[in-house]
């Protein structure tokens, strides 16, 4: 069966749910922490609220070895090309959580030098509001993402079928 011919049938739905179960319980994050939200993300990784129990244990700082990009903090003019480059270096399948108000919409900083929302240039899956969001809020964002991953199909990743 060629990769491009996959459509939904009974074999693929069982396979899809197995693959999605594996993917959603081992989302390895790559924290792109720039500012105050980066410190709250360190608190999420530490002992009190710990995302290792959701499978996001191996926090890799290399884009080639991770599948979840967490943009935490304000993105300035100089940093945006770096973010785009890191996003394109990540292999598929990949997801993006935009953590905090500054990454989602620019936050308090409506100035000449802060990008008003990372989703203008990068596709974002889950937005976590707050300035900075509580660690429990980040965990809820992760659980929402897990529910999103659960609903994916193989045809989402096909290169010939149009979405």
């Amino acid at each position: 069966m060629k990769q491009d011919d996959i459509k939904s049938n009974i074999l693929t739905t069982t396979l899809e749910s197995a693959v999605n179960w594996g993917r959603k319980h081992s989302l390895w994050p790559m924290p792109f922490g720039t500012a105050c939200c980066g410190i709250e993300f360190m608190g999420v990784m530490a002992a009190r609220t710990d995302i290792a129990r959701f499978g996001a244990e191996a926090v890799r700082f290399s884009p080639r070895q991770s599948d979840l990009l967490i943009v935490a903090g304000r993105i300035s003019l100089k940093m945006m090309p770096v973010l785009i480059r890191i996003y394109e270096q990540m292999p598929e399948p990949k997801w993006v959580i935009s953590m905090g108000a500054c990454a989602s919409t620019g936050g308090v900083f409506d100035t000449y030098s802060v990008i008003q929302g990372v989703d203008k240039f990068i596709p974002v899956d889950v937005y976590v509001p707050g300035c900075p969001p509580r660690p429990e809020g980040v965990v809820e964002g992760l659980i929402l993402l897990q529910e999103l991953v659960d609903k994916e199909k193989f045809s989402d990743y096909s290169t010939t079928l149009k979405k």
Partner: protein
Amino acid sequence: MVKVTDKEVKAERMVLNFGPQHPSTHGTLRIAMELEGETVMKGTPEIGYLHSGFEKLGEYLDYNQYITITDRMNYFSPLCNNVAYALVAEKLIGLEVSKRTEYIRVLMCELSRIADHVLNVVMLAVDLGAVTPFFYGFKLREDIYDLFELATGTRLTTSYTLVGGLMRDLPEGFDKAVLKVLDNVDEVSKDIETLLNKNRIWQDRTKDIGVVSKDDAISYGLSGPMARASGIDWDIRVNEPYSRYDEFDFDVAIALNGDVFDRYLVRMEEIRQSVKICRQALDNMPEGDVMIDPDLGYSLPPKDEVYNSIEGLIYHFEITMRNRGMTPPVGEAYVPTESPNGELGFYIVSDGGRSPYRVRTRPPSLINYSIFPKLIEGHMLSDAPAILGSINIIAGELDR
């Protein structure tokens, strides 16, 4: 030329990018290093990856609204920034705050100082490979966050002070909670020192690395633990006291060698002195208001007066409406304070309007970082995280 064998081998310089996205750069900064083998010949820093236009925002926001922006600057110890800004605004306008306000500000500043120094020491340990202190330190930081949440409502971006006083008074039971956390601080700092002080690997990686001489420290404008570890006896809390620091009894920690190990020792000693100051502040806390009289025209009146009397309503509108606001005198002011990183001060120029004409932060991180190219020359590549970690660079303050 590197002498590896009997014949001389010509070495080539390699340029390595210690880039803006890297686990051990604290925040977003970039260093372009030229290496010959493992030795760094030249390190050129590049900053500005978090430049957000704080100073331009200051000309658009109100005096009280800018306090919310100041805690996004040094996000390890946000209360110190709030206090520094409120002090300058009060000096410019010429307001005098109550004694209880000053004692509570001192207590909050010292708790922030403990949180900042603990975080800096454990992140330095993580960069050099010792991961265990990270979990001890973060558990302690979570306890201090609980205290901030009791008093101000949020964990990190507190915005606790206002021009003329504080946002609100301390709740019931706060002093018992603080005393419990202070006992915990003593235990955790003893644990961290047991793990690190006499550790052979820690001493080899931090002694005689990044030595700052006394003349260099003055010429490069260093302040805070970086200057005190090189033997300069200057602590603003003792020499130019603000907010009644002269009524507290504490020592100033000074070391003589100026290397990374000395800076670590100075920070651990400052944690102990901060615990002493906190205990004194709790024992001698006076009673009183935490806000100045609304008749002066610079503060919001209490809510029951706003709803039940016409003067309260008018004062409230005079401060908050967009075409009104405070009317400070025309002039300028600068107050230096001792933040955990060094000398932090705001410089406000006012033209009489509701927003400042120019707000400038004196950033201790930027000024302390400017000595880095001189320190890294001649050291090995793996000394770069050690030196960076000991300078305590916070990207929000570096780039503003």
